[in-house]
């Protein structure tokens, strides 16, 4: 390798390569296999990336070609992602939960040439829609179980794929490096398909420069900055920009050790094992942790319930103070916390897997301040952050010591942010603004104006001139029959802060009053019913009980007291089923598709206004 062939453009790939040279033996990744966290050093990581790169070259991938990855979080995802970028191709991530129809849409729309699929499940989805994807040439599968009997000439087993790379490397040593040398900051690096709460997913194009800006900016959010001594747990879909940032980009830029959770179900257990120092979660995750604490508090033995209950009340008090001070302890809270640490908080955090967390962030969807306050109270430094795919996840964030609950924080360094004078829409401008939607100039023009401002579609207001508070999505604002503008997400999040409420959809556009469709949390309400000796069979049966209705009515009443008269929920109905991605009610990121839900349960909504 000579200096001449080295690329001048810094990218995530060159960062990993440089780490492999500087600290070849340090741990880069950990993945649990056969009960043991298998460690991957930087040198090994880089070698795998290089092999993937060579293999892609051997398969004839040209700069700008799209390569799709359809897998759960695992080492091969990162090898593939960086290998693809190394040969100047474009990574397209698919959600593991995507049904075949969406897989087809994404493969066709992106025009992917190669698909790297995890297992039989994902391969089957691709094979089912193969005829619709003329551009797809090869499918690489990572797990062979069940696939060995398939006879399609396009299928390649991961190991053979790497073997192909190895022989290509023997024949053309340095070919990947030479290809990398040609990369420019403006090169397209990845297509991130937004979940699409309103229409079909749109592929946001992120360039190397976009990601570089995001990497350097986001690494500055934690104090002190992330280092190779930090551990993160990777468990949210890697095709989402937030998880990609916290896993791939943090890892490459700051050397943070990435630990892959076995699956989304095992996250609580994996958290306890890994005890990450930096943790990102979506509101749903944090709500679930809080609901779990409350459920286990109720079923604890009397002494433990007394002790934990007492210290949780103290934590609530500490949380109140921290909310006022922006996250800085006072002498009183510090003393209270120190005593509580001995009796409760240390072990509570250990059990939750949050013992070593020094920076926690919530983002990707709005969260109720009460949930954040709980975590601040038990000593987890929690920060709400804001960003979206279109600006490489870079916009605002609460800084350690300057937290304002209910806001998404201050604009990051180097970020221009203003509010539209008329609509209050948040506009951002910085080098992380995306290059446009893939094959969709009209949609691009709608969000990216000539001056380079990105129209986020979120309505916000300034709080104390420094922090931004998001009131709602532009499209979701309801105007009640009385002419009042209502932001449903505020109400919804207040409802979802209750451990018993999983989904809440507030309706009332051009209606005399507000009403809500509520989905109960089967686990906690089931536990609640069990303790009361209330027999039930299914979700539907449980939500039909008068007692459960009373329970949720209590939650709704409590929320209502905090809102103005016109913003109160007059009536509510239970969703007759749990919403799911398969049925099109939720996006891949578990966000409610309001349109779909409103249409599907139209008679239910009508019933609320009768």
């Amino acid at each position, binding site marked *: 390798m000579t200096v001449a062939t080295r690329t001048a453009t810094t990218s995530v790939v060159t960062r990993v390569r440089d780490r492999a040279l500087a600290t070849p*033996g340090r741990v880069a990744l*950990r993945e649990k296999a056969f*009960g043991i966290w*298998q460690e991957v*050093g930087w040198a090994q990581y880089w070698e795998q990336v290089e092999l993937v790169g060579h293999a892609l070259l051997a398969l004839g991938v040209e700069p700008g070609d799209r390569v799709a990855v359809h897998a759960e979080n695992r080492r091969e995802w990162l090898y593939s992602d960086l290998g693809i970028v190394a040969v100047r191709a474009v990574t397209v991530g698919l959600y593991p939960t995507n049904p075949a129809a969406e897989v087809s849409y994404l493969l066709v729309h992106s025009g992917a040439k190669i698909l790297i699929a995890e297992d039989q499940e994902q391969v089957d989805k691709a094979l089912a829609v193969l005829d619709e994807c003329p551009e797809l040439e090869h499918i690489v599968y990572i797990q062979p179980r069940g696939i060995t009997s398939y006879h399609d000439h396009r299928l390649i087993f991961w190991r053979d794929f790497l073997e192909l790379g190895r022989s290509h490397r023997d024949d053309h040593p340095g070919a990947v490096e030479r290809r990398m040398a040609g990369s420019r900051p403006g090169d397209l690096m990845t297509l991130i398909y937004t979940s699409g709460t309103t229409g079909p997913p749109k592929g946001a194009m992120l360039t190397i420069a976009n990601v570089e800006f995001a990497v350097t900016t986001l690494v500055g959010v934690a104090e002190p900055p992330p280092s190779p001594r930090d551990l993160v747990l990777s468990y949210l879909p890697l095709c989402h920009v937030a998880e990609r940032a916290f896993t791939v980009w943090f890892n490459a830029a700051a050397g943070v050790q990435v630990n892959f959770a076995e699956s989304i179900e095992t996250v609580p257990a994996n958290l306890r*094992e890994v005890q990450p120092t930096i943790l990102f979660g979506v509101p749903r995750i944090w709500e679930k942790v809080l609901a779990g604490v409350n459920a286990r*508090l109720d079923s604890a033995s009397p002494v433990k319930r007394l002790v934990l209950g007492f210290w949780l009340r103290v934590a609530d008090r500490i949380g109140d103070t921290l909310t006022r001070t922006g996250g800085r302890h006072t002498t009183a809270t510090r003393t209270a916390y120190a005593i509580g640490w001995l009796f409760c908080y240390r072990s509570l955090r250990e*059990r939750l897997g949050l013992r*070593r967390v020094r920076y926690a962030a919530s983002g990707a969807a709005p969260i109720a301040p009460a949930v954040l306050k709980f975590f601040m109270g038990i000593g987890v430094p929690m920060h709400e952050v804001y960003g979206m795919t279109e600006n490489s996840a870079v916009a605002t964030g609460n800084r350690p010591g300057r937290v304002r609950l209910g806001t998404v924080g201050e604009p990051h360094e180097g970020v221009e942010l203003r509010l539209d004078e008329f609509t209050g829409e948040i506009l951002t401008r910085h080098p992380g603004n995306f290059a446009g939607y893939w094959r969709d100039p009209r949609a691009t023009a709608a969000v990216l104006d000539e001056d380079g401002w990105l129209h986020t579609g979120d309505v916000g207001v300034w709080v104390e001139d420094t922090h931004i508070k998001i009131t709602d999505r532009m499209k979701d604002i309801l105007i009640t029959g009385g002419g009042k503008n209502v932001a449903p997400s505020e109400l919804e999040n207040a409802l979802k802060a209750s451990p018993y409420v999983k989904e809440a959809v507030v309706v009332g556009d051009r209606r005399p009053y507000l009403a809500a469709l509520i989905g109960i949390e089967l686990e906690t309400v089931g536990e609640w019913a069990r303790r009361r000796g209330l027999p039930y069979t299914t979700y539907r049966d449980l939500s039909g009980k008068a007692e459960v209705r009373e329970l949720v009515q209590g939650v709704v009443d409590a929320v209502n007291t905090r809102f103005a008269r016109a913003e109160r929920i007059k009536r509510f109905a239970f969703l007759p089923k749990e919403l799911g991605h398969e049925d099109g009610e939720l996006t891949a990121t578990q966000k409610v598709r309001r349109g779909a839900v409103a249409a599907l349960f139209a008679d239910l909504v009508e019933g609320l206004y009768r």
Partner: protein
Amino acid sequence: MTHTDRKVRIWGRPLLYTSYAQDMALFDTRAKKLWCGGLVLFALALSQVLVDHTLELLATALVAAIGAIGLNLVTGYAGQVSLGHAFFLAIGAYTAAALSGDPAGRTLGFGVTNLLIWLPAAGLVAALAGVLVAPLATRLRGLYLAIVTLGLVFLGEHVFKEWDDLTGGPGVGRPAAAPELFGWRLDRPGPLGSREQQLYLLVLVVLVVFAVGARNLARSRIGRGFAAIRDRDIAAEVMGVPLTRYKVLAFGVSSFYAGCAGALLYTVSGGYFEAGSFSLLLSVQYIAMVLIGGVATVSGSIAGALFITLLSPVTRELPALLPFISGDSTQTPNVFQVETVLYGLLIIVFLVFEPRGLFGLWLRVRTYWKSWPFSY
């Protein structure tokens, strides 16, 4: 497969195992290492603190612990119920006594007083007996095996009562093995303190070695084989555990432990023993140690041995508190009867309420605090 600098535990993350060696380590957490070290130091310190009479009692308990670990290996780990433990203890005791006995004495003796020779020899002879008995275990299971091993005790009792040359005859007995290490008699006051202090230290060291050995055996391939046989022998065989070989091994190792324990038992307590000691009651005592201490645990065996051995001096104090119990064995009720009844009662109570024994009680306490502040 992986190429990282070294496999080290990541600080503050006791559940994050990056290799199987860490997962199966003897001391998988720092706390365990520290507590075990502390406990051994405490036991060493006791030799300087306690009076000789108590030390002798404790030393007896520690020797009993070695025997209990042995019984736990075959009964707890490998699931082969053995009531014949007294027989193997006897073989160890007589082998050691005969080897180290005075050649010119009343009873059989070869004059080999070196501890390093008679202790392993006692273990090996007992192990040989165990291996000879083991084929029975490959043919019989559960209750039948228990009854057959019970037969061993009666056979042994008869032989030892009749073989006066070796045992000195019933009611008379013979001196126990003389512990000599590098030409230095441990049963006479020496540089390490009084007789009791030296013997206590000796058995403490032996116990630590045997306990660590048993723990290591239990977490090895052989130990996993034992557990598989205990849980279901047919399934174990299907998985590739050679039943005959492993059962023979279990009896062999167990009897080795019993032999060593038997050899030391009377050296430590009194220095004299007679053939009637190796009765069914002794076997039951060891079974009680295992059941009360905790089946298939080494620390439980030690706890059980301490508990049972220290139970008799406590019951001996009973007449002072409860005047209707007599200290005289000719009257009823007397302390010896109470003691026997207590063994039985304790076994019943533990089996019904805490089948995991003292170790189970400890586990409960540990789980309570480990799950703090939740209940699960």
